[in-house]
């Protein structure tokens, strides 16, 4: 079945470091992926998305890399700040006729100053 997983449940970094959060997906036919940030008690916040016809996409301080050969997705956060501390989820388009986002369990990013 479809599933999206993350390599590490937790990641701890120092303020100013670059963070890399990884995600493995299982459905090679997936053509759309999203990264979300979720702070405690809040809904997921859209960070960046990427389509399968791209390998890389950049936003403000964030970069998403897609490796379709090994079905791997990563989110890079530059100059990580304490406000980046949250749970990060990757999600892929899936379900019947691509009507759902399939989420993994999430990686908790902790940034210490």
């Amino acid at each position, binding site marked *: 079945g479809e599933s999206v997983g993350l390599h590490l449940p937790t990641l701890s970094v120092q303020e100013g470091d670059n963070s890399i959060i990884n995600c493995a997906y299982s459905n090679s036919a997936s053509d759309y992926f999203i990264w*979300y940030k979720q702070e405690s008690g809040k*809904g997921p916040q859209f960070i960046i*998305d990427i389509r399968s016809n791209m390998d890389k996409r950049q936003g403000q301080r964030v970069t998403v890399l897609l490796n379709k050969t090994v079905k791997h997705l990563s989110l890079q956060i530059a100059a990580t700040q304490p406000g980046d501390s949250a749970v990060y*989820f990757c999600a892929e388009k899936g*379900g*019947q006729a691509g*009507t*759902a986002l399939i989420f993994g*369990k999430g990686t908790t990013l902790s940034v210490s100053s």
Partner: protein
Amino acid sequence: DAGVTQSPTHLIKTRGQHVTLRCSPISGHKSVSWYQQVLGQGPQFIFQYYEKEERGRGNFPDRFSARQFPNYSSELNVNALLLGDSALYLCASSPHGVDEQYFGPGTRLTVT
């Protein structure tokens, strides 16, 4: 512009009761999706509606139902509540489909 709004914020219900959760999408968005998120896990897809029609349904029992109104707002109904229905219920809207889905703050449902 206002984001996705949901009401109520919190809700406490007793087993066997029913509940209605409400969602207003971002202006201009015609697609609304519902997700259930239990503590420590990622959101799980329940429904997607587009132009007032159900376009997708996740692996949830028939106790769960939803609808979308002409103004694109949506309701999620859950009947015969079970303790296991306790979760954060999230609504997300997008222009169409699931691309660029933006989530609301959620409704925290507690079933006792």
